[in-house]
């Protein structure tokens, strides 16, 4: 059983008529996430406006579903773009790039990952407030490992 374009249009209307900002639906392996425009966005590549025509909406919403998977609850997780040693500060003893409570923009540097003496800066990729730092200074981080959590939206 798959969702037809008409089903998606129907579900979209349900969300429109409701008081909720977001709707998650999981049905036989298909994950659908709908978000009302104006609701806090999840990430840069976020939901298409619900006003889009249904088949297009279905396609772009599936993408949003994938983005949503990278989130834990309402937080956006900033993950390691490569394996290496994670440093929170530009050099030993210096102030960390970010602390819990820091406001970040998409291009804010949140740390460094060193691979064989090569320093790679890691950026937040999302605007919001740092709510939790998940990795300690100097730890080995794997590719894709969550480094910190950001509450998206204006601080």
């Amino acid at each position, binding site marked *: 059983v798959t969702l037809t374009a008409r089903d998606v249009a129907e579900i979209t209307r349900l969300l429109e008529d409701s008081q909720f900002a977001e709707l998650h639906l999981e049905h036989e392996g298909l994950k659908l996430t709908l978000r009302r425009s104006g609701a806090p966005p999840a990430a840069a590549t976020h939901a298409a406006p619900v006003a889009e025509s249904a088949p297009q909406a279905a396609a772009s919403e599936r993408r949003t579903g994938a983005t949503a998977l990278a989130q834990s609850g309402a937080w956006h997780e900033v993950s390691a773009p*490569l*394996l*290496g*040693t994670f440093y929170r500060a530009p050099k030993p003893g210096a102030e960390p790039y970010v602390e819990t409570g820091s406001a970040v923009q998409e291009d804010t540097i949140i740390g460094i990952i*060193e*691979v*064989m003496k*090569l320093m790679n800066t890691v950026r937040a990729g999302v605007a919001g407030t740092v709510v939790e730092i998940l990795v300690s200074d100097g730890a*080995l981080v*794997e*590719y*894709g*490992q969550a480094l910190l959590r950001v509450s998206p939206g204006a601080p």
Partner: protein
Amino acid sequence: VKIRRVLIANRGEIAVRIIRTCRRLNVETVLAVSEVDRDTLPARLADRTVCIGPARPIDSYLRIDTVVQAALGVGAQAIHPGYGFLSERAALAQLCEHHGVTFIGPTAPQLALVGDKLAAREAAEATGIAVVPGGLVASVAEAQALARRIGLPILIKAVGGGGGRGLKLVQTAAGLAAALELAAAEAGAAFGDSRLYLERFVARGRHVEVQVLGDGTGAVVHMGERDCSVQRRYQKILEETPAPQLDAYLRQRLHQAAVHLAASINYRGAGTVEFLVDMERGEFYFLEMNARIQVEHPVSEMVTGIDLVAEQFAVAQGEGLRLAQEQIQPRGCALECRINAEDPARDFQPSPGTVTHVAWPAGEGIRVDTHVETGSKVPPFYDSLLAKIIVGGPDRPTVLSTMRAALARTELAGVATNIALHARILEDPRFVHGGVDTGFLAGVLEHAHTNPKVTHG
């Protein structure tokens, strides 16, 4: 340095194979995985996994700096590179040495030497081993002159190539210039080295290789030979030991030549010296040396009882050779069939997908090296090897019949495989007689366009 923890920088069946030996040796295993390999059989068997990057090999398994960083980060004393990927990259061995990590394999200079096919040819010639007539060519004019001297047909090979890649067969002088241009472009793109050399094409040749093990100071033993003549477009698909229908004196000379070559460069670790046996002249030529554990190593293990991976660890941690040549006494025969996810109906194109059902054969004399279980995914990013079925026995007829039964009992659905092709080879009277040349399989495929029994899920 005693290896207590090893980083395995590979995937698939060879990762499983290495982990199995590590468990026996009480060595902790950390498996470097790409994003799509997190939930594979070797990932579950390893003591720990560490994700080194996205699926594409260029972003994960081929990243030298990341692999060494991963080893340092998890506190591994050594890296086992398996085969393929970074296994023969001198730069990895060098970076390991620089950071005090043991590279389980030859030294960086040895890798550089045997990786340069011309330098390897020269090293072989220097120890008195014949090479196929030919040489480096820097221009079309040089190539034409050389082709006139050694005669057509000729093979164009890439200096930095190997494993059958970058080869071109030229039948006529008129086709030479175009083939050279194409080969140079391909070699440049694939190996970062567009240098080419020409070799006389030996029409009736057998591919026979010798397994060696060196301690790094000049002591070398061999573990007999393997016949890998059953090839499709220079890719081996079936290997056996001993090489059938081979003159005893020629066999002995092959073993000696391999040992001499490895000893002359103080070779360290497990390696294979490949030869082309010219059936018409009863002569043999050095082809290349592979400085790694090979896919087909289990057939040698079957007849010698030696665990080659364990010996790699022993040499790497300075224990040297634990066996004298007299103690290595191959017994009986062994045969390996490589089961690949490829579709015979579509010119053996890789057939990625999900294995919906699999049952591997088991029994007396049967060994299966695999990472594939029911539900395993065959990603499109890597080679298509699903399993190696290895059969050992007292004599060749017994081995062939056990293998036929083992293949018949193998159940695999969800991806297309070459199992039916193996069954056909094992029925062919020429193969049953033994000693086929490298053109054998092409002939089988040409003359038998019968409906291949393909299992689809």
